[in-house]
Structures are given as structure tokens and as C-alpha cells.
């Protein structure tokens, strides 16, 4: 395909969904059916265009790609900027191998989510009556709004992926922030009546605000990084700014330490968007949105965007973490990632909400990627990002299908108090929902890294191998720390996945809800099968070449070669100049047994322990979780999510409320300012009484006559007072316009011409 055609196609990738958003909002929002069809048309166009472009990039020779990683690049002048007349900010698209693999994953996952959403919102069932709450077994009345926002979300994500500069990326980033806010709070009228034993929830509107505010904290800091970026490099364009030459120039200009600080500022954006500690608290509550939204946020878009941005600026991070810079960027990034991975995995072990487990597992898996970036293993990070995108989207959609089945049961037995998301009330769904079970099983195995078959195994193995290489060959202690923390986290991952599968699908139904659950419609099961396919085969693209038996069979580590080509040559140059540590510039490394054994042990061990505890003898009705007894008070600590929410509430939120309510409102406003005003008023009031007495004495009824005249006049005038302020505005605008006309007329001498 010619390059011009490919460029045009790339421009068009985000256009479909964005166009669908505007058309739905402006024209078709009254027809729910037409709206979802338009939204489908938008994402299908993106899917076709995205895959065409990506496959054309993959067709390039790898060695050629290493020299010239950006295959497609085009930009147009966007905004004039600064005082220089020909200084314009440009906006454009660029596709390099990293963009291409993202396009494959994002467009496919989003398309599947869109297909699923139609079934999830019960299209074709009788119309729901209540706005802003989930209408079980009835069609969602706000379906058009849902698909409009989802389209905007998808368009923003694709804009972010194809953007060739940091500013455009940030535009997509912020649009997604807004969409996540409005979609998490989609059921704006929903409120919970939380019982003693129930899973604590906050209402969707609060969850939306929480997500928006938390990511905003990070985005403000990231914006500082963006300004710094422009200041140093003089451009927002990735390819220009992050070339070896430009980075060397920047180090000579502002020093490597400044670049380290800049990379930390930008990385803060990732911490917020990808829900890393300490800003991870918004993500679990984001589960309040409809399940397709959870899948979009946690797999295809939002959180991937954060990691994607960090990988996009990887040469900058590498220089910031390099030997020249005094800032321990590598330790900070890897430390945050490894700590988050481990912490979220421990929390996920003790959750009872079927989506809550997945939410914490997402945080944990994102920690894996961030930790990999911190050790310099950006290829492993991208690979895990892609496989995770597939299997986590699958798991979320499958859990939504489970909830749907449970709601069906609840509807059947007229039980509207039991939480359909609570795994303690499930059990035995394997027979009732076979497709959901098998796909969930595939996704769960991929998440826990079942060896040799599933995608998750290969990508996690890649991270372990890279971390081990960084420690063993380069003497980088970060690698060891990451390896140990992630191995523990991976063990817990396999354990809680097995726990979740056993509690949900095995044994006998523990409530009438699960007894009467039913398989979901084809709209929902088809995307599950599509994603399950990729949750398995996506990993085969990254099997190490010298892996025993399987390696020679496939003969090529596609993931490593293609993704590695993105920045490898740049990093190699920087490494030769001594700006980047060796472990950040590895092309490929030999196969070693130790990380493989580690990843086999943790995956199989975790699955085995999970099976021992939950799978062998599934829970029966009324039986408590065996983990409660095993862990004791630690279980409460984990179940309450390490009390992060409570901590933030005490340390940040309550003081703010205290300052605004008590200090500012009670003391300053009501006490001080109002006190002065009341004092003045009282003084004038007292003075006025003397004046009144004086007036009564001096003037008599004569004044009343004047008053009567005025009253009579006023009575006729009051007809003009309609009491509608907008009419007043209209009249005054007309008068103002007429006056303006007269002034202009005098100014230009029109009257002189008329009256000579």
C-alpha cells in the first residue's frame, strides 16, 4: 500500500468514533437503536483502519524499522504560537511499531466491548422506566447517551495512540478523563442501602467525582512536565524531541538531573491514570459504572493510556534514570510499580465483589508493567500491556455476564436485596452459564499465567526474565527487588484467580439467585469468545527464540523484534554516549532457566493452593470463607483495602472540610465579616430612628400629597413590570444595540450624510 494512502488511513482512525459521538448527541439521540448502530459503525471503521495500518507496519523489515522506527508520519500546522510569526504548534499522526501493536489491541477490545454493550443494556427488551438507575431485564432508557460517551471515549483513546506529539496525547488523555467521569457516574440516581454484611459501595456519582479528582491531581503535575518538556526540547513531537541527538543536546543544555525531574513529573500522570499507589484509590470505585465501562477503563483505554505514555517517552525516562542524572528515577518507578503490584494483589485476595477482585488485579498487573519500565524492560511492559488488555477485557466482560445472569435469577425469585455481584452468593454457575464459564476460565488462566498455553504466562515470563537479566548481567539491584516482589504478586494472582473461579462457578448454588441464573444473550457471549481467542494466542507472538522446544517451533520472538525496534537504536546511541544504563538498552538476551522456574512455580503454586483451599471442596451455603480463619485480623485489613480510603479521608479530606466549614464559613464568614456588617447595620438603624422622629416632627402631611402623586404614577407604570427577567434582558439588549448603532453612526458620520 502506498505511503500516502496509509497516512490518510491513519488520520481517519480516531475520526469514526468521534464523528459517531457528535452525530448521536446532535441528531439521533432520540432513537436508541440508530444510536448504537452508529456507534458500531464508528468503532468498526476504526477496527478495519487500525488493523490495516498496523499490519502494514508489521510487514516492514525489522532491521529497517530499527533505523527508521516511525513508518507513517504526517502533521499539519495547528496553532500559531509565541511571538514569532512562523512558529506553529503542529498536530499530526505517527505510527511506529509501538503504536501499531496498541492499535491492534485497542481497536479490537473496544469493538468487542461495543458489541457486548448492546446485550448488556438489554436492547430489544421492554423499555426501562426509571432514568439514572440500572433497570434489570429492561432496556436502558439512556442507551444513546451511553453510546455517545463510549464513542467519545474510544475516539479519544485512538487519538492518544496515533498522536505524534505530547500535546495531542494530552488532549486525548483529558477527554478520556471526562468520559470516565461521566460513564462511571452513568447511573447517577443510584443509591445503596448497605447492610452490615454487604460489600461497601459508594454511589456512582461519588465514584465518578472521585475518579476525576484523583486523576486531576496527577494531571496537574503532568501538565508541569509537559510545559517543561516544551521548554527544553522546543517541540512536542516525540520523534524529534526524543531522538538521541536531541536528548544529548538537552543533557548538554539543562543537565541530566533536570531531565530526571521532568520524567518524574510526566510519570506522575501515569501514576494517576494507571492507578498506581498512592493514587490507586479511584480505580476500585470506578466499578460503579456499567460493566462495559469497567472493561473500557481497565483494559482497552484509560489505564493502558498511562502505561502507553510512559513507554512513549521511554528514552526520556531512560536518560532520567541514567548514570548522569542524580535522580533515582529507576528506583522510584520500579518501586512504585512493584509495591503497587504486591499491595493490590494482597487486597484482591480478600475481596468478595466479583468486579472488585478484578479491579485490584488490574492495579496489580499495571504495577507489573510499571515495574518492568523501571527496570528498563519496556518491551516486556508493552507485551504485558497488550496481553493484559485482551484478557482483562475478557474477564470484565465475563464478570458482567455473570452479574447479568445473577440479576436474571434475582428477577426470577423477586429478591432485590441480595447483591448480585457478591461472590459469596454465587456458586455452581458452571452448568448454568457454560460459555461464560469457559471464557472466564481462559481469561483467569491467562491472568494467573498458566504455563505454555496462555498469553499471560509469556508476558509475565518476559518481565521476570528482563528483571533477572538486569540484576544478573548488569548488577542492577532494582531487577532483584522487582523480581522478588513480582513473583510474590504473581503467586497471589494465581491464588485469587483460582479462588474467584471456584467461588463463582464451582460447587452448588449458594442462593436462589445463582440457582436461577441463565446464560446471557449472543450479543454478550460472542465478544467473550473473540477476546478469549486473543487471550490465548496473543502470547505466542512473544515466545523467546531459544526457549526449549516451543521457541524453534515459532522461530521468531515477534514481540521483541517489532516492539524493540521502536526505540532500540536511540537507546543504543544514548548508551554509547554514557547517558543511559546498559540494562535500558538491551536488544535481546539469552534464555535462562531461573526466571522461567520462578514463573512456573508461582503460577502453578498459586493455582494449586487456590484449588486446595476453594476448588477441592467448594463453599457450601452459609459457610464462611476459609481465608478468614487462616489470616485472622490480617483478613480484615486486606478486606478493607489496607485502609487507604480511610487514611486519605482522615489526612486529606476531613482537614479540608474542617477548614472550609469551620474556619472559613463559621469563623471568618459568619463571625468576622458578618459581625462587622451587623455592627454597621445596627449603628445605622439606631441613627435612622432619630432621623425618623425628626422628620415626623418637622414635615407633616404635605409630603404625603407628593407621595400620592408618585404612587398614582407608579400604578400606571407597573404594567411595564412583567417580572420576567429574561424579558428585561431582551429589552436592555435591544436598547444597548440601538445605542451602539447610534454611536457607530455618529462615529462614521452617517447622520451628516443624511441631514447634510
Amino acid at each position, binding site marked *: 500500500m502506498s505511503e500516502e494512502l496509509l497516512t490518510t488511513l491513519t488520520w481517519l482512525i480516531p475520526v469514526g468514533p468521534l464523528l459517531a459521538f457528535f452525530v448521536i448527541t446532535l441528531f439521533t439521540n432520540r432513537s436508541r437503536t440508530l444510536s448504537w448502530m452508529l456507534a458500531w459503525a464508528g468503532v468498526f471503521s476504526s477496527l478495519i483502519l487500525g488493523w490495516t495500518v498496523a499490519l502494514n507496519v508489521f510487514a516492514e523489515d525489522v532491521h529497517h524499522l530499527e533505523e527508521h522506527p516511525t513508518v507513517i508520519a504526517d502533521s499539519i500546522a495547528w*496553532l*500559531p504560537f*509565541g*511571538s*514569532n*510569526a512562523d512558529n506553529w504548534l503542529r498536530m499530526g499522526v505517527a505510527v511506529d511499531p509501538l503504536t501499531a501493536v496498541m492499535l491492534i489491541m485497542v481497536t479490537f477490545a473496544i469493538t468487542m466491548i461495543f458489541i457486548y454493550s448492546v446485550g448488556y443494556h438489554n436492547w430489544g427488551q421492554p423499555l426501562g422506566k426509571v432514568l439514572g438507575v440500572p433497570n434489570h431485564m429492561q432496556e436502558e432508557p439512556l442507551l444513546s447517551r451511553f453510546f455517545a460517551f463510549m464513542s467519545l471515549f474510544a475516539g479519544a483513546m485512538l487519538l492518544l495512540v496515533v498522536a505524534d506529539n505530547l500535546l495531542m496525547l494530552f488532549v486525548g488523555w483529558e477527554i478520556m478523563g471526562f468520559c470516565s467521569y461521566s460513564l462511571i457516574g452513568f447511573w447517577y440516581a443510584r443509591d445503596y442501602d448497605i447492610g452490615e454484611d454487604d460489600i461497601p459501595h459508594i454511589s456512582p456519582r461519588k465514584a465518578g467525582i472521585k475518579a476525576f479528582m484523583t486523576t486531576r491531581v496527577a494531571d496537574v503535575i503532568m501538565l508541569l512536565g509537559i510545559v517543561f518538556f516544551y521548554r527544553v526540547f522546543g517541540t512536542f513531537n516525540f520523534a524529534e524531541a526524543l531522538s538521541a541527538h536531541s536528548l544529548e543536546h538537552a543533557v548538554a543544555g539543562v543537565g541530566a538531573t533536570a531531565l530526571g525531574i521532568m520524567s518524574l513529573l510526566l510519570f506522575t500522570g501515569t501514576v494517576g491514570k494507571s492507578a498506581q499507589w498512592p493514587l490507586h484509590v479511584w480505580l476500585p470505585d470506578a466499578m460503579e459504572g456499567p460493566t462495559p465501562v469497567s472493561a473500557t477503563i481497565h483494559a482497552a483505554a484509560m489505564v493502558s493510556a498511562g502505561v502507553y505514555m510512559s513507554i512513549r517517552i521511554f528514552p526520556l525516562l531512560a536518560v532520567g534514570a541514567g548514570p548522569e542524572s542524580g535522580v533515582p528515577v529507576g528506583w522510584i518507578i520500579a518501586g512504585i510499580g512493584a509495591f503497587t503490584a504486591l499491595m493490590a494483589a494482597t487486597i484482591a485476595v480478600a475481596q468478595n465483589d466479583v468486579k472488585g477482585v478484578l479491579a485490584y488485579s488490574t492495579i496489580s498487573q499495571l504495577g507489573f508493567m510499571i515495574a518492568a519500565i523501571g527496570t528498563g524492560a519496556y518491551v516486556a511492559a508493552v507485551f504485558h500491556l497488550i496481553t493484559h488488555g485482551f484478557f482483562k477485557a475478557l474477564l470484565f466482560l465475563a464478570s458482567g455476564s455473570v452479574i447479568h445472569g445473577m440479576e436474571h435469577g434475582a428477577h426470577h425469585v423477586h429478591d432485590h436485596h441480595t447483591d448480585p455481584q457478591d461472590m459469596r452468593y454465587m456458586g455452581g454457575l458452571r452448568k448454568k452459564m457454560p460459555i461464560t464459564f469457559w471464557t472466564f476460565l481462559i481469561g483467569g488462566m491467562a491472568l494467573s499465567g498458566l504455563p505454555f498455553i496462555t498469553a499471560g504466562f509469556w508476558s509475565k515470563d518476559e518481565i521476570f526474565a528482563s528483571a533477572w537479566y538486569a540484576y544478573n548481567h548488569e548488577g542492577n539491584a532494582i531487577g532483584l527487588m522487582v523480581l522478588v516482589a513480582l513473583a510474590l504478586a504473581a503467586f497471589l494472582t494465581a491464588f485469587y484467580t483460582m479462588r474467584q473461579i471456584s467461588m463463582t462457578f464451582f460447587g452448588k448454588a449458594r442462593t436462589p439467585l445463582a440457582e436461577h441464573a441463565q446464560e446471557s444473550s449472543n450479543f454478550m457471549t460472542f465478544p467473550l469468545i473473540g477476546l478469549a481467542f486473543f487471550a490465548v494466542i496473543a502470547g505466542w507472538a512473544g515466545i523467546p527464540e531459544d526457549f526449549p522446544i516451543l521457541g524453534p517451533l515459532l522461530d521468531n520472538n515477534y514481540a521483541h523484534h517489532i516492539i524493540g525496534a521502536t526505540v532500540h537504536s536511540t537507546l543504543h546511541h544514548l548508551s554509547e554516549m554514557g547517558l543511559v544504563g546498559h540494562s535500558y538498552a538491551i536488544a535481546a538476551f539469552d534464555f535462562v532457566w531461573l526466571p522461567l522456574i520462578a514463573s512456573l512455580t508461582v503460577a502453578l503454586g498459586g493455582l494449586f493452593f487456590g484449588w486446595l483451599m476453594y476448588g477441592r471442596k467448594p463453599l457450601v451455603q452459609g459457610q464462611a470463607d476459609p481465608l478468614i480463619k487462616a489470616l485472622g485480623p490480617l483478613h480484615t485489613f486486606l478486606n478493607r483495602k489496607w485502609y487507604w480510603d480511610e487514611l486519605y479521608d482522615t489526612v486529606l479530606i476531613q482537614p479540608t472540610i474542617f477548614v472550609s466549614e469551620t474556619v472559613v464559613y463559621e469563623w471568618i464568614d459568619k463571625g468576622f465579616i458578618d459581625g462587622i456588617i451587623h455592627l454597621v447595620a445596627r449603628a445605622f438603624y439606631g441613627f435612622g430612628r432619630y432621623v425618623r422622629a425628626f422628620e415626623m416632627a418637622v414635615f407633616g402631611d404635605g409630603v404625603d400629597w407628593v407621595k400620592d402623586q408618585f404612587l398614582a404614577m407608579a400604578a400606571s407604570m*407597573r*404594567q411595564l*413590570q*412583567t*417580572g*420576567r*427577567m*429574561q424579558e428585561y*434582558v*431582551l429589552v436592555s*439588549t435591544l436598547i444597548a444595540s440601538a445605542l451602539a448603532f447610534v454611536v457607530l453612526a455618529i462615529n462614521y458620520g452617517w447622520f451628516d450624510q443624511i441631514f447634510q
Partner: protein
Amino acid sequence: MIPMSWYLLFAAALFSIGLYGVMARRNTVAILMSVELLLNAVNINLVTFWRYLTPDRSVGMAWAVFVLAVAAAEAAVGLALIISVYRNRDSVVAEELDVLRN
């Protein structure tokens, strides 16, 4: 440098949207938001004329700061008024708030 007319056209568009909102919206909160648009449209004009016509005297910018302060006060007072109106009359629809009629 961006031509001055871009800013003026943008401000005019913003002003028109605001004026339309003030006249056509029924919800007083929306009217208040539209008033903010009006004020900000004027602000853009002030800053533009300052930057392009008298860049050496920061009169326009200073004035814009005053407008901002007034706008903030207006929003605070306006919202407080709307809340208390709502508490008393259970409505924020502009047409229904006609105590001053005749």
C-alpha cells in the same frame, strides 16, 4: 502570532452563545453560567486589545483581572441566591420567579 481577528471572532462567538443562553435558558443556574460566558468573552476582548494595541500599558489586563474578581463574586452570590430561592419557592425556573410582577 495569531491574527487579532481570530480572537475577536472567538470572543464574539462566545458572547453570542452566552447572550443566547441568558435569554433562552429557563434554568437560572444555566443563565448564571451563560453570564459567566459573557464576562469571559469581554475578558478575551480586553486582553486582546491590550496585547495588540497597547502592549506597553497593561490597562486591559488589569481590567480583566477586575472582571475576573467580579465574576467570581457574582457566581458566589448568584448561586447562593439561587439556592435560597430554591429553598423558598421549590423552583429555579426563571419564568416562575415573578414576585416582582406589577
